[in-house]
């Protein structure tokens, strides 16, 4: 029983982290908080992949000349790429947040929506006149 739980505990905690991330993205109106949530979600996915690559009694996949058991190096390569791409997308998202703040003077999603609605209503009433 304990063995069964230990065998999957890593996966489950990672799922909990992912769901905290997705909840932050979906429920919080603040754009920076949304990006932070996206980052947490992303890091949890990385951890899921690396966890799947671990082999019991294995070592880091670096050849030393001695016969050794290595952990799976392919998830490491994938995630190495994903981390760097992740930071690039985070930078793009944050640049968008800065521009939204310049255009609307707020980084709260609902305030941006209210301002948009107000603009549309104003234009429509002007068109009606």
């Amino acid at each position, binding site marked *: 029983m304990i063995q069964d739980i230990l065998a999957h505990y890593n996966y489950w*905690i990672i799922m909990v982290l992912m769901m905290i991330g997705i909840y932050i993205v*979906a429920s919080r109106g603040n754009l920076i908080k949304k*990006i932070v949530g996206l980052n947490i979600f992303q890091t949890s996915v990385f*951890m899921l992949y*690396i966890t799947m690559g671990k082999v019991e009694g294995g070592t880091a996949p670096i050849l030393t000349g001695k016969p050794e058991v290595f952990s799976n190096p392919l998830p*490491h390569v994938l995630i190495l790429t994903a981390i760097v791409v992740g930071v690039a997308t985070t*930078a793009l998202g944050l640049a968008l947040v800065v521009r939204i703040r310049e255009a609307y003077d707020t980084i709260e999603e609902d305030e941006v929506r209210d301002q948009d609605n107000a603009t549309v209503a104003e234009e429509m009433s002007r068109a009606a006149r």
Partner: protein
Amino acid sequence: MAGILISLVLLTFMAVTAFYVLRLRHLFSVVMLTGVFSLLSAALFTNLDAVDVAFTEAAVGGGISTVLMLGTLALTRRREKVPETLSIGPLIIALVTGAALVYGTLDMPRFGDPNAPALKHVVPEYIEGTANDVSMPNIVTAVLASYRGYDTLGETAVIFTAGIGVLLLLVWRREEDEEDEDGEKEDRA
């Protein structure tokens, strides 16, 4: 066994950190906690034998993204608005997705299983090939730069595109915006 215990402790710390990221409203603390989260995940990667990933995560995830977020905070504001209600919809989405994912893990090979299907396919070829074809001690580097070199080139293209996007958004502004900004600055002065 010690390795499993270390990862359990680290993961539990990470769950606590993520919970406080959710709860705190002061964005500066939230960003610092994100840095803590990245550093803890780097420690976990080291424990799971992914030393290259740990290095990248500590430098890029823990360092550069935290700096980028602090820079954004300096340009925007520090406090999050308190939402009026607890949002039920996102909670349901998170719980249902989480339940589906946990159900999916039940079929997965147990943690550290040396007979996992993922280890049986091309992995032995890459491990042997690294010694013979590439003559490079680090298998991750060999796969990244040699076997999958074109993928890494594609990755570089993605980063280049993102960099151009950031430049377009922040540096090349439309002229009307520039005029507005100048006006604002003059007003402030």
